[in-house]
C-alpha cells in the first residue's frame, strides 16, 4: 500500500483543477481533487490511476514506486476542441457565436431507422421532428423553431457534405431523405439562428441541417465494420370501432328492414385483416482506413423493411465511397464523396386504413365467387359495385400494385488549397451533384371494385432530377498576436441549378383509354455571393459577420436579388480573469445575434411570368365537331419575391466543473415579413381568384433550454443524461394588404367528410393552422346537444359565421430527455420525449361517429366509431369542437440495451450486441391511435408501429 499524493493542473494554463476524478483502474475505489487541485489516495504498487474530468482528455498513470504524481490534463479535443462544420467551413465549437446543435453518430437514436431525420428525434432543443406515419421509409416533418412560412416551404435546408439538397420530394420515394443510408452519417449539425444560417441566405429561414458522412482516417490501420439488425414491428393498437356483434345489435335496433336484411353472418375484424407483424433487416459493411496514406472509406448497406400495413415494403441498397488524399506537402486537401442508392418501394393502398374502420364487420373477406377478385363488395341491384360504398379493405390492398424504383446519387469533389507563399490563405473549390431517377407503376386490375368505373388503373410515371452545384471560396486566417486578435475572413461564389423532368400517364388497366398524360419539366437556378468575417479578441470576444447575396430565377429581374446579412457577438466570460481560475465554472459564454434570411422556395418556378396553360385531353371543349385543347391565361404576380425573416437570438452556454453539468439557454424572436400568402384578389383584376403574393407577416418567439449532466463518471460506470425543452409561440400578424379586421383569414386543413370542408384557418392574431370550429353546446348531463352550437356572433342563426378559432396543432412546449448509462461492458439508454399543448381534430371520430354513417344513402351499411354511443349524434357534426382533443403526450421513443465484447477473439475484434425497442409507450389523454399527428388532423394516418430490434456490430 502506497499513499500517493499530487496536484492536477490544467495543461493549458497550469491552473489547478478541482473535482477531478481519480480512479483505480479496474476497481470502484477512487477520490476527487480538492479546491486547490490536490488529492491523495492509498493504492497498491502496480495499479493504474485514471484521471478524468469533464472537458479534459482522460489520462492514465501507472503508479509504480511513485508517491507523488502530478498530472496535467489536456483539453479533450472531442468536446471543447470539437470542430463543428458550419456553412462553407468549420469552426471550433467553443468559438461559435450562433445557435448550433451538433449531434454525432454515437448520440444518434438506435433501432430500426430507415430515414436520417429519425436519428435525432427528441435530441435537440428547438427542433421538432414529427413522423409522417409508419410506412417504410416515411419521412418526417422537421420544424426548426416553428415554421417561418405559411405557403412557402417550411422545411430546413439540408446540406450533405457541402451539397445543398433540393427539398422537394422525389417521385416514387416515401421521402427524399429515405434514399440516404443513416449508417453512413457521422454527424448532423443543426444551425438554428440567423447568425449561423444567414450564410445560406435565401434558403435559410427555416434553419439548416448539415449532414457529414463518415470518412476514413489517416491514423490506425484498416478498419472493417459490419452491422446487422433484425426488427419486428407491430401495431400499437387499433382504432376503436364497433365489433361485429355490437354492430349487429345496433343495426337491429336502429336500422331499417332493408339494412337489417343486408347484415352478414361473419365476424371480421378488418383492422386485423390489413395489418401484420412486419420484419425488417438492415445490414451494413464498411471498410475504412488509409491506403498508401490516402484515407478512404467504402460502405455498402442493404435494408429491407416491411410495413405493418400488408403489402408495404422498402428495399434499399446503398453504397458510398469517400477518399480524402492530401497532396503537395499537405497544401492540397482533396475530399471526394460519392453516395448512391437504389430503393425499391412497394406502397400499400392506404385507402385500406379508412376502409377497415368503416367496413361492415359482419361481412366476410371473400364473397365465395370470382367477381371483383373474389372479395366481398357492396354491389348495386344490377351486380355492379356500389360506387359510394366503402371498398373491401383487403381487396384494396391486394388489388393494388404500386411499385417504384428510385435511384439517387449525391456526390462532390472538394479541393482545398493552402497557398504555398501564403499559408494563411486557402482556396476551396467544391463541385457537386444530386441526381435521382424514379420509375413507378401503379396498377389496379379492371376486375377490382375500387376502379370499376374506370376499368382499372395503370399509372406509369417517371422523374429525373438533376441538380448541379459549384462553389468556390477564399479563406484567410491570421493570428495577430501583438493585438491579441485573430481574424478569419471568407468570401465565395456559388451556382446551383435544379432541373426536374417528369411524366405521368394514367390509363385504364389494359391501357386502351388514357385518362391523364401530364408531362412536366421545370428548372430553377440560384447564383450567390457570400462572405464571412470572424474576429476574435483576447480569446474572449468573438464577432461574426456574414452576408450573402442571392439571385433566384424564380423572380423577375427587378426582384431577383436579395441581400441577407447577419452579425453576432459572443463573450467568453470564462476567459476573463475573474473566472479563468474558477473552481466551479469551466465555460460561460454569452451570445447575441441578429440576421436576415430569406425563403425563395415558393413552390413555383415561373410565378412571375404571364403564362398560358394548355388543357389535357380530359379538359377539352367541343366547338363544332372538334374537341379543342384549351389555352388558359394564368393569373400571376409579376412582383412576387422572397419572404424575409429577421431573427434575433440571445443565448448563454455554460458548463460547471464539479457538477459535471453543461448546457445552454437561448431566446429567439423570428419575424417573417413579405410573407407569401394566398390571398383573394379583387375579382376582375387578375386571371384567378386567389394569388400567391407577398403580403403578410408572422412571428415566432421562444425559449430553448438544453442541459447535459454527467451524474456518475467513474472508470466502470458512466451515466449521462440530457434534457431539452422548447417553448415556441407562433402568431400571424398580417395577411392582407389592407388590414381589414373583418377578414376571417385563409381556410386550410381539409378534412374527410363533406367535399372541400376545412377545419383550420390562418388568421391575424392567431397561430397558423388554428382550428376553426363551432362551439358545441352541452346539456346538463354534460352530453353534447346535436346540432346546437353557441351563437357566437349573436345573429340568431348558426352558420359558418359562428365558427371560432380554437387552439392549434403546434405544441406550446416540447421536451426531450435522454439517458445513457454504461457499466463495464453494458450500456443502457433511452429517449423520452413529449409535447405539451398540441391539439388534434379527431377526424376518425367525426366522420365515423354519427348514426347516419352506418346508413349509406345507397343501400350499404358501414361501421361506426363507438364515440357515437357517447355523443348520440344522428348526423355528422364535422365542425363541432367536440372533436377537438388535447393531444399532449409523453412517449418513450426508444430504449436500447447493449453489450460490448471487449476482448472478443483476442482483442482484435470488437463486437457489440444491442436490443432496442422503439415507440415503447405513450402517455396521453388523446383517444385516437397516435396523438402526434403532423398537421393536427387525425384522419387514417398510417400508424407508427412499435418496433423491437436486435443488432450485432462487429469491428476489427
Amino acid at each position, binding site marked *: 500500500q502506497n499513499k500517493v499524493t499530487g496536484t492536477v493542473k490544467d495543461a493549458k494554463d497550469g491552473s489547478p483543477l478541482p473535482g477531478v476524478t481519480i480512479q483505480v483502474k479496474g476497481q470502484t475505489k477512487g477520490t476527487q481533487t480538492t479546491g486547490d487541485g490536490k488529492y491523495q489516495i492509498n493504492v497498491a504498487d502496480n495499479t493504474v490511476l485514471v484521471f478524468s474530468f469533464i472537458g479534459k482528455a482522460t489520462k492514465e498513470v501507472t503508479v509504480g514506486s511513485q508517491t507523488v504524481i502530478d498530472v496535467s490534463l489536456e483539453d479533450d479535443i472531442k468536446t471543447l476542441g470539437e470542430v463543428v462544420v458550419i456553412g462553407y467551413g468549420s469552426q471550433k465549437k467553443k468559438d461559435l457565436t450562433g445557435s448550433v446543435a451538433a449531434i454525432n453518430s454515437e448520440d444518434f437514436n438506435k433501432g430500426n431507422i430507415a430515414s436520417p431525420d429519425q436519428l435525432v428525434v427528441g435530441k435537440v432543443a428547438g427542433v421538432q421532428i414529427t413522423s409522417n406515419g409508419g410506412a417504410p421509409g416515411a419521412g418526417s416533418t422537421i420544424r426548426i423553431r416553428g415554421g417561418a412560412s405559411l405557403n412557402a416551404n417550411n422545411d430546413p435546408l439540408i446540406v450533405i457534405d457541402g451539397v445543398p439538397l433540393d427539398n422537394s420530394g422525389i417521385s416514387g420515394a416515401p421521402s427524399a431523405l429515405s434514399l440516404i443510408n443513416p449508417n453512413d452519417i457521422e454527424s448532423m449539425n443543426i444551425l438554428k439562428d440567423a447568425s449561423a444560417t444567414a450564410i445560406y441566405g435565401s434558403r435559410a429561414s427555416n434553419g439548416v441541417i448539415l449532414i457529414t458522412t463518415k470518412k476514413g482516417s489517416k491514423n490506425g490501420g484498416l478498419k472493417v465494420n459490419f452491422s446487422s439488425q433484425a426488427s419486428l414491428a407491430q401495431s400499437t393498437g387499433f382504432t376503436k370501432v364497433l365489433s361485429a356483434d355490437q354492430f349487429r345489435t345496433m343495426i337491429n335496433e336502429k336500422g331499417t328492414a332493408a339494412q337489417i336484411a343486408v347484415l352478414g353472418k361473419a365476424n371480421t375484424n378488418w383492422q386485423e385483416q390489413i395489418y401484420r407483424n412486419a420484419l425488417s433487416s438492415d445490414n451494413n459493411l464498411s471498410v475504412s482506413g488509409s491506403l498508401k496514406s490516402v484515407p478512404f472509406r467504402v460502405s455498402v448497406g442493404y435494408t429491407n423493411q416491411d410495413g405493418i400495413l400488408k403489402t408495404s415494403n422498402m428495399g434499399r441498397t446503398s453504397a458510398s465511397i469517400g477518399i480524402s488524399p492530401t497532396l503537395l506537402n499537405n497544401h492540397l486537401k482533396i475530399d471526394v464523396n460519392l453516395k448512391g442508392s437504389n430503393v425499391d418501394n412497394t406502397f400499400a393502398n392506404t385507402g385500406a386504413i379508412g376502409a377497415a374502420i368503416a367496413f361492415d364487420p359482419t361481412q366476410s373477406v371473400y364473397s365465395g365467387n370470382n367477381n371483383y377478385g373474389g372479395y366481398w363488395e357492396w354491389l348495386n341491384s344490377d351486380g355492379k359495385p356500389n360506387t359510394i360504398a366503402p371498398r373491401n379493405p383487403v381487396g384494396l390492398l391486394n388489388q393494388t400494385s404500386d411499385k417504384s424504383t428510385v435511384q439517387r446519387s449525391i456526390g462532390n469533389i472538394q479541393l482545398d488549397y493552402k497557398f504555398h507563399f501564403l499559408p494563411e490563405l486557402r482556396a476551396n473549390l467544391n463541385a457537386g451533384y444530386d441526381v435521382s431517377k424514379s420509375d413507378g407503376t401503379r396498377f389496379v386490375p379492371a376486375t377490382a371494385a375500387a376502379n370499376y368505373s374506370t376499368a382499372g388503373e395503370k399509372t406509369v410515371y417517371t422523374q429525373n432530377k438533376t441538380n448541379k452545384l459549384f462553389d468556390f471560396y477564399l479563406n484567410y486566417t491570421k493570428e495577430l498576436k501583438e493585438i491579441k486578435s485573430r481574424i478569419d475572413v471568407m468570401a465565395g461564389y456559388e451556382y446551383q441549378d435544379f432541373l426536374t423532368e417528369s411524366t405521368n400517364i394514367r390509363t385504364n388497366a389494359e391501357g386502351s383509354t388514357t385518362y391523364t398524360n401530364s408531362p412536366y419539366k421545370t428548372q430553377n437556378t440560384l447564383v450567390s455571393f457570400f462572405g464571412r468575417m470572424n474576429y476574435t479578441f483576447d480569446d474572449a470576444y468573438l464577432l461574426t459577420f456574414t452576408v450573402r447575396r442571392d439571385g433566384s430565377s424564380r423572380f423577375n429581374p427587378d426582384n431577383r436579388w436579395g441581400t441577407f446579412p447577419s452579425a453576432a457577438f459572443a463573450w467568453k466570460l470564462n476567459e476573463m480573469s475573474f473566472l479563468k481560475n474558477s473552481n466551479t465554472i469551466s465555460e460561460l459564454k454569452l451570445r447575441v445575434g441578429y440576421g436576415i434570411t430569406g425563403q425563395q422556395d415558393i413552390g413555383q418556378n415561373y410565378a412571375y411570368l404571364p403564362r398560358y396553360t394548355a388543357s389535357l385531353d380530359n379538359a*377539352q371543349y*367541343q366547338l363544332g365537331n372538334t374537341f379543342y385543347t384549351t389555352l388558359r391565361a394564368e393569373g400571376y404576380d409579376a412582383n412576387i419575391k422572397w419572404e424575409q425573416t429577421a431573427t434575433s437570438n440571445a443565448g448563454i452556454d455554460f458548463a460547471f466543473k464539479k457538477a459535471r453539468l453543461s448546457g445552454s439557454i437561448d431566446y429567439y424572436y423570428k419575424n417573417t415579413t413579405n410573407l407569401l400568402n394566398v390571398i383573394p384578389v379583387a375579382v*376582375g383584376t387578375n386571371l384567378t381568384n386567389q394569388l400567391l403574393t407577398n403580403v403578410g407577416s408572422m412571428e415566432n418567439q421562444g425559449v430553448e433550454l438544453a442541459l447535459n449532466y454527467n451524474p456518475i463518471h467513474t472508470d466502470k460506470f458512466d451515466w449521462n443524461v440530457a434534457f431539452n425543452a422548447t417553448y415556441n409561440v407562433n402568431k400571424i400578424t398580417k395577411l392582407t394588404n389592407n388590414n381589414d379586421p373583418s377578414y376571417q383569414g385563409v381556410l386550410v386543413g381539409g378534412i374527410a367528410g363533406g367535399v372541400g370542408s376545412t377545419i383550420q384557418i390562418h388568421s391575424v392574431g392567431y397561430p397558423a393552422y388554428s382550428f376553426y370550429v363551432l362551439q358545441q353546446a352541452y346539456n346538463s348531463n354534460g352530453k353534447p346537444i346535436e346540432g346546437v352550437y353557441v351563437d357566437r356572433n349573436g345573429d340568431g342563426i348558426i352558420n359558418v359565421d359562428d365558427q371560432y378559432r380554437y387552439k392549434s396543432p403546434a405544441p406550446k412546449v416540447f421536451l426531450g430527455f435522454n439517458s445513457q448509462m454504461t457499466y463495464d461492458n453494458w450500456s443502457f439508454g433511452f429517449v423520452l420525449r413529449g409535447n405539451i399543448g398540441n391539439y388534434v381534430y379527431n377526424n376518425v371520430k367525426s366522420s365515423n361517429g354519427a348514426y347516419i354513417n352506418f346508413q349509406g344513402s345507397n343501400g350499404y351499411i358501414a361501421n361506426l366509431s363507438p364515440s357515437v354511443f357517447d355523443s348520440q349524434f344522428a348526423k355528422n357534426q364535422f365542425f363541432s369542437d367536440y372533436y377537438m382533443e388535447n393531444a399532449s403526450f409523453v412517449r418513450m421513443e426508444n430504449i436500447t440495451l447493449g453489450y460490448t465484447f471487449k476482448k472478443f477473439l483476442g482483442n482484435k475484434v470488437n463486437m457489440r450486441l444491442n436490443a432496442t425497442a422503439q415507440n415503447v409507450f405513450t402517455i396521453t389523454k388523446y383517444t385516437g391511435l397516435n396523438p402526434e399527428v403532423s398537421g393536427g388532423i387525425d384522419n387514417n394516418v398510417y400508424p407508427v408501429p412499435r418496433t423491437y430490434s436486435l443488432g450485432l456490430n462487429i469491428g476489427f
Partner: protein
Amino acid sequence: CTGDLDRTPFIEVTSATVYNNPAAYKQAAAKLYAGLALTGQEGPAGKPDLGGIDEGFSSYLRQYWQLQELPTDEAVIAWGDAGLPEMNTMQWSSNNPFVRGLYNRIFYQIAACNEYIREASDAKLSSRGITGTNLTDVKYLRTEARFLRALSYWHALDTFGGNVPFVTEADAIGSTLPKQTNASALFNYIETELKAIEPDMMDARKNEYARADKAAVWMLLAKLYLNAEAAGVGAKYADAATYAKKVIDAGYSLEAKYTNLFRTDNNNSKEIIFPVAFDGVHTKTWGGMTFLVHAPVGGSMSAASFGIDGGWGGLRTTKAFVSLFADPSGKTDTRAMFYTDGQKLEIEDLTQFSNGYAISKWKNISSTGAQGSDIVHPDTDFPMFRLADAYLIYAEAAARGAGDRTLALQYVNALRTRAYGNTNGNITAAQLTADFILDERARELYWEGSRRTDLIRFNKYTSATYVWPWKGGVKDGKSVSDFLKVYPIPSTDLTANPNLKQNTGY
C-alpha cells in the same frame, strides 16, 4: 453565370409567344366557352381555375344551378358540406363558400373574356399579321367573347343585384381596383353591349355547335328585359317579347319528345339555342352535368338506368313543386319525372335522401337508351337557352299585356301538347295568366336553373304569398327578408377591394 437566372417555362407558353400561332385564338376562345363547363385544365380535377374551393364545387354550371334551385321549391340537397345546408334554408352569409364560388366563377369568366378581347384587339391582330380567314374567324370569336362576358354580367346582375365590380378589357391585369357599379348601370351596359355585338355575331343556327350566335344574343336580351322590372330598372316586357319572337322565328323547333332534351344526344336537338357542352371522354368535371346526373340518384334508384356508375344521393324536390303537377305520376304530363319508390313526399329531414321525391330528369343515356361514352362523366349537354323558354318568355310578356295573347296561347299549348302527347292538357285563353306561366315555367324548365329568378319576378321568392317546405329554415316554410333576393358580396372581395359596399341587409 447570372444569365442563367432567366429561366422560362418548358411546358407552358408565355403570353409573349402564345399568339404567334393563329390557332391559339380558337384554343383560348374554347377556354372561355369551357369556363361554363369545366373547372380546370386537367379534367375532371387538377390545375383548377379557382382556388380556395373544392374544384368540383367551383363549376360555373354547378354553382349557378345550386344558387338558382336550392333556395326554391324545386330542389333540396342532403349533404352537409360547410355552407351548403344554408342554401336550402336561405340562411347564407357573406362568408358562404357557395355564394363565393359563383361570384368568383362569374368574375373569373369576365376577367378571362377581357383578356381575350384585349389580346384579340384589331391593333394586336394586325401587329401579329393575322389576316384573311384567320382574321375573320378571330373577329367572330372576339365578338363571342363579348357575348360570354355579357352573359356573366347578366348572371351578376341577377344573382348579386348588380352592385358588383365592373371591369372591361380597358382594365389591364393587376391594375387599379375596380369600382362598384349598380343595377341600372349594369343593365344598360349589358343591353348596349348585346345590341352592339348583335350585327357581328353569326346568324342564328349558322355557327358551329356550342358556339353562340345571334339567337343566343336575342335570348339573353329577352331574359334581360323580362327581368328588368325585378332588377329595378322598370318594366320592359314588350322588349322581352320582341326578342323572344326573334328567337322563335329563327327556325328552331321543339324537340318531339320532352325527355330527349336531357339525354346524351341532345346535341342533335333543334330546340337548343345555346348549350353548355359536356363529353364523357373529352370534357370531364366533377361539377356541371356530372353533378346534375349523379347527385339526384340515390335510394333504390338504379344507377345503371341513369347511365352512371353510382348515385351521390343528394338532390330531391319538395312537395310544393310536386303539387304544381295536377297529376305527378307522369302518366298524363310526361314532364313529371318523379321517382317515389322508397321516397317520402314530406321532408322531415333535409339530410335524408329518402325525404322528398327524387327526380329523374337528367341522364347519361341516349334517347335510344344507350349509355354515354363514359360511365362517370356524362355526354349530356346542358341547354342554357332553349326554344321552350323563348315561348314562355313571350307568353309571360303577353300575359302581362306586352304581346300577342293568341300567339302566346299557341306557344304554351305547343309545350303542353308535347308534354301530354295530346291536346288534353291544353289551356284556354282565359287560363293564360302570368301566374299560370310561372307554374308552367316550373313544369317545363324545372332543374334547368331558372326557378329563383322566376319566383323573384313574381314576388314569391321571399314573401309569404308562396312558401314551401324548409323555406326560411322551418319545415312548413315561412317568409324571409326581402334582402335575400340578392346574394351578398362575398366578404373575401369586400376585403380585397375597399371600393365595394355590401348589399343592403347583409
